[in-house]
């Protein structure tokens, strides 16, 4: 079966992909924080951020329609805030525009951050930045077994669709779905037992090894200083 919905652009080759994961986490988080601090009505600064991020996104080789398409995620919240706009008096449109621009910017940055590293490297970066070991191990296992479990879900869904004719009532649908999930849960527990024994026999230490890990190099230094310069320039000039 095909899984192409996760981690799909991590294998591309671009100046951003070459950087150490820590650099990207720190740099893009700083950009996010800075984007959140842009005051409403400061169109020049918003424009500068869009310009900078468009350049980074162009460098990163991620397809354009994916980058722009993901920004639709913020729409429900903006709509909800739009419902509330009439209560805010005269500055409501500037406020709503700032909210929309800020969250669009942050989403574009997040797309860049999460799509320019392989997940194993990203995890290693998180771990080196002080993420608790149990969380890192959990994330690693999630990534490893997500594909196995979603394969099983797809097979179960196919089996269900083959065996049922027409639409059933909501209650029977729920019963079927509940049993499917229950079966999957039992299988997950059994798989966890196998994993436990495999862990014991292979001496798992809690770290997922990365082939040829990236090092902190002059590129990383250049990227971090570029981001810092950009933020300082937009806020103090």
């Amino acid at each position, binding site marked *: 079966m095909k899984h192409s919905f996760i*981690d799909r652009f991590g294998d591309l080759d671009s100046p951003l992909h070459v950087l150490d994961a820590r650099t990207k986490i720190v740099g893009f988080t700083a950009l996010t924080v800075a984007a959140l601090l842009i005051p409403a009505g400061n169109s020049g600064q918003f424009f500068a951020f869009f310009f900078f991020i468009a350049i980074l996104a162009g460098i990163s080789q991620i397809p354009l329609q994916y980058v722009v398409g993901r920004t639709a*995620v913020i729409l429900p919240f903006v709509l909800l805030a739009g419902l*509330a706009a009439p209560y805010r008096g005269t500055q409501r449109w500037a406020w709503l525009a700032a909210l929309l621009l800020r969250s669009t910017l942050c989403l574009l940055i997040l797309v860049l951050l999460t799509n320019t590293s392989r997940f194993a490297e990203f995890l290693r970066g998180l771990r080196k930045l002080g993420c608790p070991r*149990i969380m890192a191990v959990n994330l690693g*296992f999630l990534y490893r077994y997500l594909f196995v479990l979603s394969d099983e879900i797809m097979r179960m869904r196919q089996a269900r669709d083959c065996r049922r004719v027409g639409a059933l009532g909501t209650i029977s649908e729920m019963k079927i779905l509940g*049993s499917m999930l*229950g079966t999957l849960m039992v299988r*997950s527990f059994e798989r966890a037992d196998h994993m436990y024994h495999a862990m014991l026999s292979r001496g798992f230490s809690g770290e997922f090894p990365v082939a040829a890990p990236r090092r902190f190099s002059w590129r990383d230094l250049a990227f971090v200083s570029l981001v810092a310069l950009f933020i300082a320039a937009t806020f103090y000039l």
Partner: protein
Amino acid sequence: MRDGLQFRPMHIPDGILTNRIALSLDALSGASILFASRRFKLELSARMIPIMGVLSAFIFAAQMLNFPVFGGTSGHLVGGALLGIMLGPMAGLLTMATVVVAQALFLQDGGLLALGANIFNIGAITVFSGSAVFRLLGAEQASGRRLALAGFVAGWFSMVLSASACAFQLALSNAVPLGIGLTAMGGYHAVIGVAEGALTAGVISFLHKVRPDLLHRDFTPGFKLVDWAGGLVLVAIPLVVLVLAGSSGLPDPLQSLLAGPSSIADAAVSPLLSNRNQDLYRVLGYLALFALFAAIFLAVRWIRNRKGAS
């Protein structure tokens, strides 16, 4: 696997909450995760690690299994209450937090600084309320209808509480008034919550029939007095920050950090944007921003690829 675009109205993106609210919830969630993971290192066998890992993958995969709700929207199992019942609050929180972080990283559902808020709403609240309601109903040793009913109530409550917490945060951020937020989020999730409750009840009843040993074993260490005290402090600090400082006119802590000449409060608005008869131009301007984004993007890529080819 993901059929088209799917809205997840619980995952708050960045830029919606004010920085103060987002940061204090980051602190709260980060502290509770550190707290829970410390307890793990001290008291838990390694046996729990693969169980939590696989169950977080299970929840992530199960959340992609949609069922139609009404009017073309679709819902999915959230699973916080289920995890709280199965694993207890500590392991359940860590597992759910993993799922929320993974959703932000893989699917960009929920923002980076809003991660604390999302872990709090989708992780902590659903897990804690689910397991608390289940235990309060005395269903740990129950079977049959009583077990199913307790599972249903736990699932429904977890959804409604988590949606209300989200509405409260939006209201504290001055983004959405409490009335509208509670009606919209709470109402929608009171409906979705029926399905969540039904699925929770279905899975628990199924497990009780097939593998009762999974349901009735206690993995996690119980709460001790120290934990209650620590938990109270953990909850109290952000609450004080939220309630006392959240609504006052104090400058934003982040903003004062970066107090450049341009970072004035949101109230200062350029005259260009304050004219209210230009809605159409504003929408067009927003779309034009995307066109500009695309143009710069394509130009940079074209230059790069030409260099690569030659």
